[in-house]
């Protein structure tokens, strides 16, 4: 499972990085979104991949690591804010510069 999981993160990162290297703003935003998924999953996996052990205190239970989960939960919300910000930035750039190239000019 760990191997497949690691490969998945690699694929997510590859797609994300490739999109981030594109010249137009929208693919870059999508790339950031994909990398966010990869990063959040990576952080989450630092508590290891354990099934059937949610961190709800109860009698005689096994628990996974709650700390990475708490960190990732806020990270998800923050990355939503960041995606929104970058999107609005690209709209602002389009309205100010008249094009949606990351370098600010059509080449």
């Amino acid at each position, binding site marked *: 499972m760990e191997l497949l999981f690691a490969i998945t993160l690699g694929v997510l990162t590859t797609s994300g990085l490739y999109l981030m*290297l594109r010249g137009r703003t929208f693919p870059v935003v999508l790339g950031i979104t994909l990398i966010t998924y990869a990063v959040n999953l990576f952080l989450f996996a630092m508590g290891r991949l354990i099934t059937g052990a949610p961190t709800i205190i109860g009698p005689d239970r096994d628990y996974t690591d709650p700390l990475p989960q708490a960190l990732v939960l806020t990270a998800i919300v923050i990355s939503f804010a960041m995606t929104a910000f970058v999107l609005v930035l690209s709209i602002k750039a389009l309205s100010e510069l008249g094009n949606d190239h990351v370098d600010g000019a059509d080449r």
Partner: protein
Amino acid sequence: MLLALIVALPLLGSLLPVLLDRRGRRLPAFAAALPAAIALLTLLSFTREMQAEQTIIVSYPWLESLGLNLSLRLDGLSFLFALLILGIGLLVILYSRYYLSTEEAMGRFYAYLLVFMSAMLGIVLSENLLLMLVFWEMTSLSSFLLISFWSHRSDSRRGARLALTFTAGGGLALLAGVLLLGHIAGSFELSQVLVSGSTIIQHPLYPLMLILILLGAFTKSAQFPFHFWLPHAMAAPTPVSAYLHSATMVKAGIFLLARLYPTIAGTDWWFYIVSLTGLTTLLLGSAMALFQHDLKGLLAYSTISHLGLITLLFGLDTDMSSVAAIFHTINHATFKASLFMAAGIIDHETGTRDLRRLSGLKRFLPHTALLAIVASLSMAGVPLLNGFLSKEMFLSETLNQGLLGRFNWIIPAVSTLANLLTMAYSVRFIHQTFFGEAPKDLPKHPHEPPFYMRLPVQILVLLCVVVGLFPGQTVSELLAMAARASLGRPLPEYSLEIWHGFNLPLLLSLIALVGGTLVYFFLSRPLFRLYEKLPDAEARDVFEGTMQCLVRSAVWFTDRLENGSLQRYLALMLLGVLLITGSALWRLETWTGPVALTPLDPLTSLGLLVLMAAAIMVALSHRHRLQAIIMSSVAGLMVAMLFARFSAPDLSLTQLSVEVVTAVLLVLALFFLPWHTPRESTALRRLRDLALAGGGGALVSVLTYAVLTRPYESISPFFLDNSLPGGGGRNVVNVILVDFRGFDTLGEISVLAITGVAIYAMLEGVTLPRPEKGLGGYSWVRDRHPLMLRVVSTLILPLALLVSVFIFMRGHNLPGGGFIAGLITTAALILQYIASGLRWTTARLPLDFRRLAGFGLLTAGITGLVAPLFGKPFLTSAFTHVEIPLIGDIELASAMLFDLGVYLTVVGSSLLILANLALNGRPQDKERI
């Protein structure tokens, strides 16, 4: 305490002249003299202790962990230097009052001078070496201000820059050297350093440390090959030259040699470096001085040569030579300061300093002429004046060394030659300025300066004569005090007598005096002709050329590296990350760690495969943007599933609701952006990007795999154990968010609120055209708000809100909480906007989302502030159980109030973002949201 006053008074007093700047000329001068005079009296109050050879140390702790303390030290050596700094400083203050013209900013001048004085006093009175460095840098900076005082003149600015570059550069070397010295000695306090001489000399780092410290001393004291800055610093007003370049700034390096003499001298390294540098500087300075036509230029090179002489004496490394060095320091300060002042008077009265235009001035300036002649004769080392005494000691010391083997004769020979040249330029100075025919067409008609402008010169020249005639009664005690403090051991037997009998030093002296006079009168013409033929290498131009070349190449390099393309920067950064992280991972012996892999289960594998496929599809279809959004949402949903699978229900819920909101956001933004991406990268470019991205992906895979197969320890048992008893909640993730790590969460919702406000601000004034036609060229649907959707969404809203309340309430004990509830509420409200339109919804939901977000933040923050009222740390939570009929046991925790703040902030910020984006292009609605 009194000691600190000596250093601090001039610094504090530097404000006075500035404040009194507009009150005439006498008041600022008086205000500048006052702190210096008080400091001098304070210093003199220590005379008795100094005579008793006490060392006074006061120390105030400052940054003890770095070894930096505010500790000051007064012993014979620092007493002597402080005396010179304050005494000559006072004379210079008096002199400047008459030198500066009425329209010049006198207050500023005196302020700089006092700051400089304070810095110099700091250097000589520091007990802590790091503290001394601070003052050392302060002298570099304040001397920069003083040299560039006439900042409208280009030569002043360039001269000041040159001086700053050399002295500050040397200061850096000195910093490194002192750090090494402190490291070797184990302390930065002088009293500790001065007694660890033998440890220091034997340390393997000793040569490096010595060279670095000497670099600092040599740049400051204008030793070859760093002497260039001094002649160019002559662009300063003459009082500055008289102060900085006779008694203070250039003597800082000399002071350093004297101060550290017991610890770092006494080795072959020291002897060769210091004595040969001194010897070269001595000869070069005296030779160059002969050919200067500028009066101050002559004095500047003469200063270089005398500094070389003093350095050479330290380099000779005998007890007696150190005594001679300190003696010559005193003498040089007196005659050179007076000469600079005399040169200033000549400049002031005639309007020129060019030796070729001056002549016969003794008719017009008889008093000044007499003073300048006596001072120059002292400089030349003519008997009955103080310069003669130290020069005689110097010559006899050059005969007393023996490290150069059969080349021993070089040092006395070169020294005699330098003395001969000194005599020659002194005679030239006297003869060309004061004798000969009456001067023709001078810019001004010369006459004697005011009495008080001449007074400082008179005092100094008087000192030259008195010391020269009665050394035993005047200077010997001061000299002995200083020399003993410098050497740190009893002094050798010596006598400051004028007549030592007819011996070899006297013969050398006579050769120099007679030879120098002859050279000037008979050989100067052919010598000057020879000098004219020498290639004209102006140090300043070389320096400026080098600087400009450096700047040009930096600009060229920056332009090549940064061509303005963000795409390129990103690729370069990515490459850098790949190389750094890749090389680190490469060194890993094995990627697979000792922890066994968990078996694959079909459902999870399928999910991972779908996630991969979706990610690849996003990349492949990115030119059709709507399609790419759908694919990225698929990926997001799969991520939510994975969270659910791996025991993280909270994350799963959050991801799910965020995904809904994000999808709406992306589509909304796409509405304003182009719907397709043009194909513009070349195949090669795409291949390069794919390689970079693939490399990054591989790194992440390897890293993840390597970590997941290795054992780990967590701090989480603490949270699991304390969640229920300490935080009152069963859902540990939620308790961490609102309680254990509540401060983090507060920060995070702040970021969220800030983003909302930033987006609000950024969209101000943005109007983008709304596309006429939809995707594929179809017209938009007529019915913008379909009836079915409107009815269903209205029905769903109360249910959705109820769900979010439920999720919120149970959050402390079961998956849920403020974040998730907030996102659900957001999604429900957005549905209203989509179904019924902005205007309709806004009319029914008159909420100010900015206020809502702010209110949420306040709620969370104030909840946290309650705890400190009860003496608990910020954000500590309290909880209790309440039994309510019908509903049952309800837990009330203050953390819930905090979570309410989170909820409100999430709702406010998300809606602020989305509603404003939707409003974009419709300014008439703007003021409502």
